[in-house]
């Protein structure tokens, strides 16, 4: 590792084979007796090229963890990196530009800008950056549009698309910039089971075939079963870290955790 100079011996995120990581992360809201600790000293990394699911019951801190890892929220204590860039302490502008260029987002609902058509939404990260996609990026977008079956829908506005189609447009937008990491927050929460399965298969394929790192927050065991790795959160801590599991195994684990609590 030649690029580490002598006075910078810290191990970088990419040395660890990670796309993003957090260290001793704590997040609390309010203070004193009324204070709530959403995250308690969490250290974890999202492996590069993997599809990771983050699970846990409501209030376990999974969304807070994702928001901080994605640069949408600031931790109370601890550090966070996206790639080799430490994001804790970044100003709003730097953080925004970092998100624009190096993070992709897929949300449960309301993913698309309603006034722009599908292709307008897909190209938005480039346009916000004030540039046009390069030839390589253009080829990637064309490939995505093809794979996601959006070719005939590119000039439709979101309200003219079904939920599954809207989510596929959101996936195309999230993958278009080939970001370090794609965050998906309950991406199937608003979809019927068939469209949901399609979306999950597309995400899994993006990670398997194109080495895209993806972190998905979900409380759906079937969704988590598509992931290469499942992290379980409980009361602001990571309580388990499992490799790929079946939906039955995941449900059984969650049920057991629920009973134990």
């Amino acid at each position: 590792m030649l690029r580490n100079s002598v006075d910078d011996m810290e191990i970088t995120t990419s040395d660890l084979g990670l796309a993003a990581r957090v260290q001793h992360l704590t997040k609390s809201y309010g203070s004193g007796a009324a204070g709530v600790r959403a995250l308690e000293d969490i250290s974890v990394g999202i492996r590069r090229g993997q599809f990771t699911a983050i699970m846990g019951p409501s209030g376990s801190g999974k969304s807070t963890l994702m928001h901080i890892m994605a640069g949408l929220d600031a931790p109370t204590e601890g550090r966070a990196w996206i790639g080799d860039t430490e994001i804790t302490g970044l100003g709003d502008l730097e953080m925004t530009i970092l998100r624009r260029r190096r993070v992709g987002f897929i949300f449960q609902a309301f993913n698309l800008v309603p006034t722009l058509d599908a292709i307008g939404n897909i190209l938005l990260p480039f346009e916000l950056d004030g540039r046009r996609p390069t030839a390589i990026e253009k080829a990637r977008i064309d490939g995505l549009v093809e794979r996601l079956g959006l070719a005939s829908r590119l000039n439709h506005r979101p309200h003219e698309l079904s939920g599954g189609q809207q989510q596929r447009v959101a996936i195309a937008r999230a993958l278009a910039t080939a970001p370090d990491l794609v965050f998906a927050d309950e991406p199937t929460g608003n979809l019927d089971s068939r469209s949901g399965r399609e979306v999950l298969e597309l995400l899994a394929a993006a990670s398997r075939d194109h080495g895209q790192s993806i972190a998905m927050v979900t409380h759906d065991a079937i969704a988590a079963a598509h992931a290469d790795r499942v992290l379980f959160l409980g009361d602001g801590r990571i309580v388990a870290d499992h490799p790929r599991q079946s939906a039955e195994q995941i449900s059984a684990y969650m049920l057991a955790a629920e009973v134990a609590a």
Partner: protein
Amino acid sequence: MTAAVGALATVVPETRSTAGRLAWLRERGMGASVLVAALAAAFGVVLVEVTAYIGATLQADPFLGDSGTLAVVVAILSVLLTAVAMYVAAVVTANTFSTIIAGRTRRIALMRLIGASARSQRAEVTGQGFVVGVIGAVVGLLIGVGFSAVGVAIGDTLLAGAPESFSLAQPGVALPVVGVALTTWLAAHIGSRRVLTVTPLQALGGSVERTHEDVTRRTGRNVGALVLIISGTALLALGVVAGLITPLGVVIAFLGGVLSFTGIVTGAVLVMPPVLRLVGRMFGRSATARLAAENALRYPERSSRMAIGVVMGVALVTMFAVALESSKALLMRQTDEPGSAEMFAPMDAFASIMMVLVAVSAVIAAVGLVNLLTIGVVQRKRELGLLRAIGLTGAQVRRMVLLEALHITVAATVTGLVLGVAYGWIAAQSLLGSVPVLPDFEPAGLVVPAVPWLPVVVIVVATALLTVIAAVAPTRLATRVAPVEALAAD
């Protein structure tokens, strides 16, 4: 600009801790509606008082006492200006109420779910509009009378022929006060039309973001507007032609002006969107410009009505200025005496006074613009959060909201200037086209419209200022939207 500052105060989010029968008055938009009604009422009251005072002054003057012409002209202008101010205020109120309804959809749906009828829900809103109108009208009356008292006191000391005892208790002030209360009521009724489309189902979770207001096709109204515009334009043309023979051409042209402008105002939804679209293209293809352009057209009815308020003010001022300037140019050709320009000094003074008076409508329009932008931001909180998440910077948010404001004011100002120049020229042409001029005292024939540049510059600078001021509060609100809070599932 105190009005704009007042409007800023009203858009700050308020806690709803105060329960009670009038708690709804604290809702976003209500304060602005009261302010708008108060401004229109105060303006009307002051104009009534001024008209009465001028009448009394003229009567006290031994030389002018018999001639009532000036008093009549002043009275007609007062009615016209008050009507414009009331119209703009009503438009602003109707827009505000329709956006208040949009914010209340969930609650109305819940009421419908547990058994309230759509009619009763709308009646509640309309009743609130009446209360707002009454409060605004009374506040306006007090402000207007206070303002007039100061004005009269100043007038008494400055004017030699001031009337002995002028009473501020003019019965005429009841007209603008009652008028504003009623138009606000009516505006609330019109603005609350969407209550009828709220279904009980909307209370049940499924918070589908309504992206496009279902623009109900009101063909009848649009056809009516088109008929007005076409027949009005025909009369305007006829007036110009007739004006080449007789000064009475101006009567025909005046009728055409009233018809065509009414058509343009009622058909705002037909006229303004193409202009808005054109202006949107002017702003370029950057992401912020395109988003702003799309936003300005998202609720075409709302933006068009708002824009037409500004159009009215700009068109009126420009019309007077161009008509006077064109007449001046024509009349100058009647004589080659040097120094004749001095006789136009009263006309110039008149034009300046008109501009100041129409500016009141512009202030009301500014309040409406603040409201329009603010509610636009509030309604798109989640969208702004999404945009922030995927990389829209704070500066880009600011630019976007400012561009949205500019979009409407630029479209409105340009439309107003074009209409004003056209109407002003037609007025001068139809009145003076037959006047004999030098060198050989032939009728003047067609003249080129004379555009006085100073008023145009003043209008452009004023609307630019208005835009920037109106965008301050909504911009601050928009940049405060954090991606996380907006994206948290509800």
